[in-house]
């Protein structure tokens, strides 16, 4: 544990809607931020994990699921993989493991990971209908909301923002991903800024490279570093001002352990 450098901020990378490219975004921001920070990306979408496919970790022997099942007795570090200049914690895809997992244990896992990193990115579920889906935005210091310029994606993004805010988790900024109509997006982004916290971090063009990267099992920024979408993600990461979410509250691990859910009574 590296308590000498307690600066850490945990971001939930969230979107209310599937298909917005949330996992691609989480890994792209992670890789870009890894140039200046120690970054850990966690697949907190425990019900529909897919980060492992994006990061070439299909055969990972220990995953977040193992950490969330008490009887497994796995150590957090067993599920941490050094990939592409960052630390990656994949989640398994087995339904049985998801059922056996105790979502509340995520708090302890995040607390332990937070003690040894600068930036924690939680790839969050594209849903709000269960405790395990909401916990990442409960635990995070701030959210990055991944949007598409469509009415359903914006409505769902607004909902995620309100859920997160209900738990005191403010919006760090928004990303418009998979944008096709580059002419119309300006108007949309400008208007959306009135309702979303933070700023528009980036407008990421729709990209065949993102699909190819996923097939190759590599993050977009590793697979096609010069693609327009990759450049846009790097710019977005620069706009994200990483703060110390713990400011003044002492030990980071304690912050996550105590900030959240009370013990069962």
């Amino acid at each position, binding site marked *: 544990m590296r308590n000498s450098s307690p600066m850490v901020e945990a971001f939930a990378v969230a979107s209310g809607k599937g298909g917005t490219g949330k996992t691609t975004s989480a890994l792209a921001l992670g890789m870009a931020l890894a140039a200046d920070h120690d970054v850990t990306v966690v697949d907190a979408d425990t019900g529909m994990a897919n980060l492992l496919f994006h990061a070439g970790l299909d055969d990972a022997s220990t995953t977040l699921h193992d950490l969330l099942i008490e009887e497994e007795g796995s150590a957090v570090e067993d599920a941490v993989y050094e990939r592409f200049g960052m630390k990656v914690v994949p989640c398994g895809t087995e339904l049985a493991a998801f059922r056996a997992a105790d979502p509340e244990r995520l708090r302890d896992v995040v607390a332990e990971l937070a003690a040894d990193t600068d930036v924690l990115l939680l790839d969050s579920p594209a849903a709000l209908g269960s405790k395990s889906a*909401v916990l990442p935005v409960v635990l995070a210091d701030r959210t990055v909301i991944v949007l598409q310029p469509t009415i359903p994606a914006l409505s769902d993004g*607004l909902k995620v923002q309100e859920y997160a805010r209900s738990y005191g988790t403010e919006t760090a900024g928004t990303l418009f991903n998979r944008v096709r109509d580059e002419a119309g997006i300006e108007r*949309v982004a400008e208007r959306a800024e009135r309702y979303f916290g933070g700023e528009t971090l980036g407008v990421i063009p729709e990209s065949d490279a993102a699909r190819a990267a996923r097939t190759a099992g590599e993050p977009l920024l590793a697979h096609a570093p010069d693609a327009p979408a990759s450049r846009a993600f790097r710019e977005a990461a620069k706009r994200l001002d990483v703060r110390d979410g713990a400011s003044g509250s002492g030990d980071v691990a304690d912050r996550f352990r105590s900030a959240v859910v009370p013990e069962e009574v």
Partner: protein
Amino acid sequence: MRIPRGDLLRSRVVDDPATTLSTALDRRLTGYAVFEPQDAILLDDETRGVLTFEAGIPTLAYCTDTDRGGADALNDLAGPGPYSVDLYELDRADLAEAHEADDLRVPPGLPAERLAADRDLVTRTREAAPEERLGDDADAVATFLEDEAGIEAIREQARAEARARAEEWGLTDALDD
């Protein structure tokens, strides 16, 4: 908005406007529906909303009470229901003149979104809509974002839902008061 009287297909009270929108879509109806919120009937109010369809796809919206059109008209009409609804069929030619009024137009999926919050119906409607009706996506999205009251309603509902569920999941102590 001037529309010739059409052939009355059905007249009924519905709890959810999705019923009517879905009927129009499934029948590929060209015509219009007149929505009258039931609370308006009780209050002896004159609130009526007219929504026109082309081959089942919502085209124009107008609220008689507020004299507003488009997305505004849908907001004026949106409520808890039930609604008294009359559904009429008309020839396409009879709607042509009214359909020139661009300021009354609504994006195909917006009535299902606003009146019924039925995401599946929004998707079904958009899938059935002709390409040229979907081409103005940026316009539709910008219009959606212009509607501050509508956005606030979404946020308000999400806040209430978040609190209710926090209780259900034992997360109330984590709420930020």
